[in-house]
């Protein structure tokens, strides 16, 4: 049986006025795969996610999700995908639970199933106790966790997570990793962007390394390490680009 392609990125190029954010990106992601898009700040990870969920138009090339062209089949695609944006996007005057409920109500999921999803999600991200407090009172880590719950509330088949653990305390980070592993076990297709190499190594079936909008490597973490004879993905990245993935603070 041929694995179904959940996401197909085909000769994707995106240029802004002065800069090329993505240059001829080609990636195919199988259904049920946990794919890591790895790269330093400004590599083009968020731009890729934005185009995948229809927020930005590609300059050229195309993206397809479950066979639907994102440009034309956007309505169909929208029910299939869940997106966790890099910066938490939440209504600060609503409680954590109300945010999750509000976004859940925008999808066509039966009410009782939605309620179960919400309770389970809130428990999984460890916010049961704080669910009824306003988001404005949340710490950064709590906001990021609710941000993730909002992305998953409608039980999407394909999940885009844009740096879900950036700037998180270790406790929150492990809670998020658990959620991601869980999603993977349920057979969801996950595209995760990160600039933490160890996160990609721990979680991902396959990683694509991008730098300045170009894909410089694409394989499983183990294969990449073997191919470049390196101990860690970080070292693979240095070998490929001649620089560290995270700029050292000056």
């Amino acid at each position, binding site marked *: 049986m041929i694995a179904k392609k959940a996401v197909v990125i085909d000769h994707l190029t995106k240029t802004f006025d002065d800069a090329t954010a993505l240059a001829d990106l080609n990636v195919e992601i199988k259904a049920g795969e946990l794919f890591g898009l790895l790269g330093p700040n400004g590599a083009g990870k968020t731009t890729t996610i934005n185009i995948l*969920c*229809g*927020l930005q138009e590609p300059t050229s090339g195309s993206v397809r999700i479950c066979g639907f062209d994102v440009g034309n089949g956007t*309505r169909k695609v*929208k*029910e299939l*995908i869940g*997106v966790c*944006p890099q*910066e938490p*996007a*939440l*209504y600060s*005057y*609503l409680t954590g639970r*109300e945010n999750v*409920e*509000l*976004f859940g*109500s*925008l*999808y*066509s999921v039966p009410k009782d199933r939605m309620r179960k999803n919400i309770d389970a999600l809130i428990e999984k991200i460890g916010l049961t106790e704080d669910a009824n407090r*306003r988001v404005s009172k949340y710490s950064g880590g709590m906001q990021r966790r609710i941000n993730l719950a*909002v992305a998953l509330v409608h039980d999407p088949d394909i999940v885009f997570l844009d740096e879900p653990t950036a700037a998180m305390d270790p406790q929150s980070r492990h809670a998020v990793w658990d959620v991601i592993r869980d999603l993977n076990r349920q057979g969801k297709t996950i595209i995760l962007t990160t600039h933490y190499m160890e996160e990609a190594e721990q979680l991902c079936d396959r990683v694509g390394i991008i730098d300045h909008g170009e894909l410089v490597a694409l394989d499983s973490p183990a294969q990449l390490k073997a191919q470049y004879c390196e101990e860690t993905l970080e070292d693979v990245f240095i070998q490929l680009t001649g620089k560290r993935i995270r700029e050292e603070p000056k």
Partner: protein
Amino acid sequence: MNFPRVSSLTKKEQKKLLREPAALFLIILFPIALTLAFGVSFGAVGGTSATTYQVGVINADVSPNHSWSQHFVANLAASQILKVTMYTDEAAAHADLAQGKIQALIVIPANFGISCDSFAAAPSDATRWIATSIPLYCDSGSMFATQAIPPLLEQALATTLSGAHTAAVALPVQIESPSLVQATERSAFDYMVPGIFAYAVIFLTMTVAQSFTVDREKGLLRRIGITPTTPTEFMTSQSVANMGIAVVQVALVFAVAFAVGFRPNAAVPGLVLAFGIVAIFALCNVGFGLITATVAKSPGSATGIAFLFILPQMFLGTFVAAASSGVQAAAKFVPSYYVTDALTSLLLRGAPVTSPLVLKDIAVVVGFSFVALVVGVVLFRRYGNA
């Protein structure tokens, strides 16, 4: 259109209003405080505290002997309590009564002198009297006027016919029981109330602009955009929410105004239509808010730009409007003017809901609101949602 979706987005707006102190203040508390302040400052009605009553008199007596009616008027004027204003034009007299300038109006009948002569000729033989009657119109809104004025008139009449100290039991001239006239004794505050309604609603421009710029900055508009929510559903939720907010605003202002003495001269259909106009006007301000959010780069600049819509509407079209001819000419270009005008007709002048003046105002408000909303939505979708 998916109604559960629209309804949950609408409910979110309601929660926002109740939970965000800035919005709650601007939209609810400020108009209420304003109404209270103006009600207390300008609410006193000129006539009620006075111990004199203005009585209009039309002397229609055409009898050969004029002296009777002249005495009667003189006796009325001699009273400490009544102040007499003579009218020759009946319509003008009724208009003044309706506006509360006078509290009562009497018409001395054509045969007054003849009737009085017949009494003087045979004071004790009622069968030879020529009877007549004096129509009396009283301001129904002034309880004192309806109670106090008829006896004072009787007394002046008795004095005229039989001298100061005679208590005549019967007279040929009867003062008719008063016809009550819906006189509107209006304070300066009453004339402000329709303008305060419009005033409250124009601030929606600012809250809408704020809400869209903040939500855009936080990535919430994009996040909504990722869901299956259509732009039409989203804009519908915003429109419905703000119409609801406007109605609540005006209901609260109305209640407070009522508490401090405002009495609309309107029946239920007039009131319902007044609230309908306010709801439509809310859409106009949603449109202005969207235009503001399109132009504004940040929530901070949105506040400033919103004032470009708020100030002209406020100074040209609400109770703050000055009565100069320049202002009145310019006022024709702001929608709030038509809202205030329609509400004044409906709530103060007692205009029926089908009155052409009101319908014309409504047509203009609907036109403004439609254009503002369409332009706002199109501009924001094309240039503001990046």
